[in-house]
């Protein structure tokens, strides 16, 4: 699972990459949502409360979202994510029955340094 990108001197990118865990995204989203909705709830007018069956829903939901967001962040800190890596496909990734054709389909073997041609920017949204 090692990738060619994993070189010393790229630690700052690694740190940044580590922040890009789904838990940090979800946590941050709910912290922001929670703050906004709680503020709206604090300033809710009587007509807003009357609209929703006499409940101040925003003040109910805002803190719930804050707690959910905080939970994701705490989880992230307690159990830091493993860095996600892209990796080249190998024969091992194919079903046994397809490995004979797989070899031809996979001329570049991983682990042999220097066989990777420079990426071309031909495809939409590529590298």
């Amino acid at each position, binding site marked *: 699972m090692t990738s060619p990108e994993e070189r010393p001197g790229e630690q700052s990118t690694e740190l940044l990459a580590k922040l890009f865990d789904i838990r940090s995204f979800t946590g941050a*989203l709910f912290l*922001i949502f929670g703050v*906004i909705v709680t503020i709206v709830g604090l300033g809710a007018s009587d007509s807003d409360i009357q609209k929703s069956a006499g409940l101040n829903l*925003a003040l109910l*939901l805002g803190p*719930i979202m804050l707690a959910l967001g905080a939970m994701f962040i705490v989880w992230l800190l307690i159990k830091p994510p493993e860095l996600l890596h892209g*990796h080249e496909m190998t024969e091992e*990734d194919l079903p046994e029955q397809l490995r004979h054709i797989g070899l031809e*389909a996979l001329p570049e073997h991983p682990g042999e340094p220097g066989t990777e041609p420079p990426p071309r920017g031909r495809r939409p*949204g590529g590298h």
Partner: protein
Amino acid sequence: MSLAVDSGGALSLDLSPVDLLLMLIYFSFVLGIGFALKRVVKSSLDFFLSGRSLPAWVTGIGFISANIGAVELLGQSASGAQYGAAMVHYFWVGAIPAMVFLGIVMMPFYYGSKVRSVPEYLRLRFDPKAHLINAITFVVGSMLIAGVNLYALSIVLEALLGIPLIFAIILAAVFVLSYILLGGLTSAIYNEVMQFFVVLIGMVPLTIIAIKETGGLSQLFDKLTAEHGQSFVEPWTGTSVGGSSPVGDWIGIILGLAFCLSFGYWTTNFAEVQRAMAAKDGNSARLTPIIGAYPKAFVPLITILPGMAALILLPGIGSADSGLEYNDAIPALMDKYLPPGVLGVAVTGLLAAFMAGMAANVSSFNAVFTYDLWQDYIRPGRPDRYYLAVGRWATVGGVAVAVMTALIASGFSNISNYLQTLFSFFNVPLFCAFIIGMFWKRATRSAGFWGILAGTVVSVTVYALYKLDVLTFRSDLHETMWGSIAAFAAGAVAMVLASMREQRKTDEELHGLVYGMEIRDASDIARHAWYRSPVVLGIGVLVLNVGLYIAVYAF
């Protein structure tokens, strides 16, 4: 799929600036995920199967979230309003046992054999004929359903932003396209995880309102019983053979709905199974559908229950003069009851669900198109980076087709229903081919094709006879249940007959694909704590289901 916004404008959603701000924040997070994941896509396996690297809780939530699209949210609440509590069978008898079965029994064949798609299993277990039927129907079907989701998304966007429908469709399509192109399946799954929590938080207030405003659950059920009879609030009442429940009889529910329809959908639909194939090891793959089953058990509380409450809270819904259709139950309740801020979260959840539903179809479509059609039959033997590029172009092409489907759906609101019925004919025979292929080594290479063909023909025939009034059923739902039973039986018979005149495949050809020859990795063989054991968690969710049925009767 028809929200009332396109039929006279009875439904409108008035958003305050703070609601729009919440939407804007959410959608910038969605794109952010795409950009953050760009780095991770190096091979076609990364793009189509997340490099088989994700933890079970992520794939599990993705598994269930991919299913919560337009059809699920609006459709199930509409069915709740129309058929009542019996709709919970689709969850507690249908979906959840199927998901547990997929995790405990079928996943080792899918994950252990390292097939890269559901059709690829058919190719290895049977022959290219069975493979092609599945690959082609899946590719066409998922594009059509992507179009339905896109259309639903665009109608809401049109109503919210006041832009013409065509712009709304293109805006939504470009958005989904960009984040899938960037991050592939991982992008889709990560967004599904985020979407799941937003939908949950956004829908729960509706349930609270439904209970509070109707005076509590028992009050709500009493009122509905008075108006619609006992079987409307008690899921098993009237389900005896010859009974009156519109959903059907218990044989149809257990054999047709649970065993044929739900098992067929959940265990062979690649849009779902793909999430489990993206898991990092055998144990995580098996846990994927089972983890997804826990939240699925509670989805009726945020769909069917508000749908039923809508009958009381939105008087006249479903009748011509109210201007509201059953499909509008959830958006109309939102508009009537949710205050600013909360409405923003709920509408964002709705949009996110439609978007994720479309993304799930697109991200499974491109994998099947690339691996099962392009690589197998059109341009085999190219380097992996070639197929990665094909996958990206297939994504563009798939979204373009979805845009066209959405435009067609906007002109003929019923066409999508008919098309979905058409593709549902294939589901049950497919399940028949899988289950017999997995558990009966003697099934030969052509058995898969004949099973699928015979089952589909019978399924279509029963449907046609019902439509021509030769056969009578209590409702369309009742017809699908018995049609599925007939299709499964016909498929099984055809498979046995086909297998009798042919040599079986060798053990070497079948390695990893059939019962008794599963390939299990270390994580799957190891002993696990209860919270990582597929069997313990699977039984747990089934017990939970029984508890939920009892809870419905308690009110």
